[in-house]
């Protein structure tokens, strides 16, 4: 195999690794903001997958059948990520104001 | 139950671009809003009032230069008036007129500086300051021409003034007051209609007439608050009762009015200088007094309308060659005391603008 040939599996592996790191961060961090960063990394990895499939799929082929559906999906993911970040960080700030902590292990009362 | 944002302490000064000297504001802030403000003074204290008790009456005149170093002439004048009142020295009429001319020139210089730094505090990057420095520079040249010094003039003497102005002084001052109205019109064009300046200064640092009187503030700040009070009219000294001029009175008592009042006072000063030059009597410029003046025991207080307000000198004599007690009523210190009222609850930029419009001179606050 040509070492210069960058193909779909290359991107999928990168995406998988980043996704794994994102999961690890989201699951193991105490801090709500750090968890949010993990989630954003996961979303990024998914975006990379979408775009990679789009690039190596038929959209960029000689006769594109369904042009750039993957890209359109990524646009929506970006939108949702922005909205999610805004609301989640607002919640983190709110929780901090009420309970003086953003440690997820201590926010366990389902009420504040 | 929410935990509000924590207030924090911001030290403005002692070294800060808009404290105009070594002077510290200890501000408690909540975000950009000021919750509390402390004025910490004393960094420039030189113990003048105590030192004055060790020097003869004439030797004390240079001290008064160094209190309000932007208005040395007015300080000289106030001190000399106090000692003259104490010792009963008569001043020739020519000296009275010269004193008026130089005090008004000093007022022009000081108001140029005050307005320039005020606009600088409002954010105009030094341009108005430089414009106003241009005129101030010419006035300082006139001082240099007359008495050899520019800033700490030490010009007034007990019983008159130290020198008669040289012949070249008169054309120079004529030229200056000829062009000053034009220059003041230029500032008006540049600044008075400026939307940004109006937005920054209108309604900021408002002091009502009652507040101003209760705080015993004087000078342009008092007049901006709507109180028509000017010692040149209320308690005329030198020859002010002979001149025809008006005192400007502001309507809202905000920073903008202070700026406008100072600008208008500059115009009126030009008027006074013009009249004083036209009516300048001939004669001696100084009454000779004994080298070591020993006034009879007693006390005297003389006040002049300095550029910053009522500049009072209180001198007590015990019959010796030096004053037994010497006190300066410094307008800057008293005007500054209302900064707290103007700044608390305002935002930081407003407080800075209010401080700029107060026109303090730290040398006078600390003495």
């Amino acid at each position, binding site marked *: 195999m040509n070492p210069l*040939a960058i193909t779909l599996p290359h991107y999928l592996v*990168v995406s998988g690794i980043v996704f794994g790191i994102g999961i690890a961060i989201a*699951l193991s961090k*105490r801090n709500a903001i750090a968890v949010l*960063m993990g989630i954003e990394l996961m979303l990024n990895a998914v975006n990379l997958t979408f775009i990679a499939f789009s690039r190596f799929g038929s959209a960029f082929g000689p006769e594109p059948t369904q042009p750039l559906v993957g890209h359109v999906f990524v646009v929506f993911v970006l939108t949702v990520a922005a909205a999610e970040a805004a609301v989640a960080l607002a919640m983190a700030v709110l929780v901090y104001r009420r309970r003086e902590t953003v440690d997820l292990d201590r926010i366990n009362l389902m009420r504040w | 139950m*929410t935990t509000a944002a924590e207030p924090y302490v911001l030290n403005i000064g002692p070294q800060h671009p808009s404290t105009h000297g070594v002077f510290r504001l200890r501000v408690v802030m909540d975000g950009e809003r000021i919750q509390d403000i402390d004025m910490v003074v004393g960094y420039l204290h030189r113990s003048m009032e105590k030192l004055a008790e060790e020097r003869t009456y004439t030797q004390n005149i240079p001290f008064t230069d160094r209190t309000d170093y932007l208005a040395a002439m007015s300080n000289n004048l106030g001190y000399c008036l106090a000692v003259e009142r104490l010792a009963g020295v008569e001043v020739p009429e020519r000296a009275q007129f010269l004193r008026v001319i130089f005090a008004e020139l000093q007022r022009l210089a000081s108001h140029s500086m005050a307005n320039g730094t005020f606009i600088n505090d409002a954010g105009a990057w030094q341009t108005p300051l430089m414009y106003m420095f241009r005129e101030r520079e010419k006035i300082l040249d006139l001082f240099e021409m007359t008495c050899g010094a520019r800033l700490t003039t030490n010009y007034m003497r007990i019983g008159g003034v130290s020198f008669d102005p040289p012949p070249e002084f008169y054309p120079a001052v004529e030229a200056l007051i000829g062009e000053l109205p034009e220059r003041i019109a230029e500032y008006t064009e540049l600044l008075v209609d400026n939307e940004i300046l109006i937005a920054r200064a209108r309604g900021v640092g408002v002091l009502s007439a009652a507040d101003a009187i209760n705080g015993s503030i004087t000078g342009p700040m008092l007049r901006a608050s709507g109180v028509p009070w000017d010692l040149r009219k209320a308690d005329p000294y030198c020859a002010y009762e002979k001149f025809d001029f008006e005192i400007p009175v502001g309507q809202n008592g905000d920073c903008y009015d202070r700026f406008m009042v100072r600008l208008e006072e500059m115009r009126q000063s030009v008027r006074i200088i013009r009249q004083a030059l036209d009516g300048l009597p001939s004669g001696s410029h100084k009454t000779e007094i004994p080298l070591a003046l020993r006034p009879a025991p007693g006390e005297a207080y003389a006040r002049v309308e300095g550029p910053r307000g009522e500049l009072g000198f209180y001198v007590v004599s015990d019959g010796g060659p030096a004053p037994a007690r010497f006190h300066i009523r410094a307008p800057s210190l008293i005007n500054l005391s209302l900064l707290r009222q103007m700044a608390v609850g305002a935002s930081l930029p407003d407080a800075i603008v209010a401080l700029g419009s107060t026109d303090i001179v730290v040398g006078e606050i600390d003495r």
Partner: protein
Amino acid sequence: MTSIGIAIGFYALAGLAIGSSLLVFLTRNLLHAVIFAILAFIGMAGLFVTLSADFLAVSQIMIYAGAISVLLVFAVMLTPYASRDNGNSLFAPAGVLVGLGFAALIGFIATQVAWPAFTGGDLEAQNFTGTVRTIGSALLGDYALPFELASVLLLAALVGAIALVREDER
């Protein structure tokens, strides 16, 4: 895509993205973690560029590195003392294991599945002029409804975020 430029770019950017992501996990200071997250986002944007996704790469930088990162930094700053450290909870080993599992799973699938033979053809030959027009017409054509919904979602998020952190006026 057989080109030395793409290869160098891919390996450098993949290294940047993966390394920065790892540092987000490893570093002890939350603000440093935010910085590394921004680097990871930028690396991802670079990978998008290697995939000819110009519009999305720029959008990624604008939204992630420009907007979300500012939100993150602000959130860190508005929660003082509580959130300076980036410590792990008791679930850290489990979390790492799950992460490793996912990464291994995706890697396995990616390397073992026989993907279609099409390997990202030469775009120069097709007169490729960018993705903006296509994405734009798709968004306002087939995907008009989701597009409008996304705008509603953004508005709702805006209002929601403001309503959440608004201080009581007392």
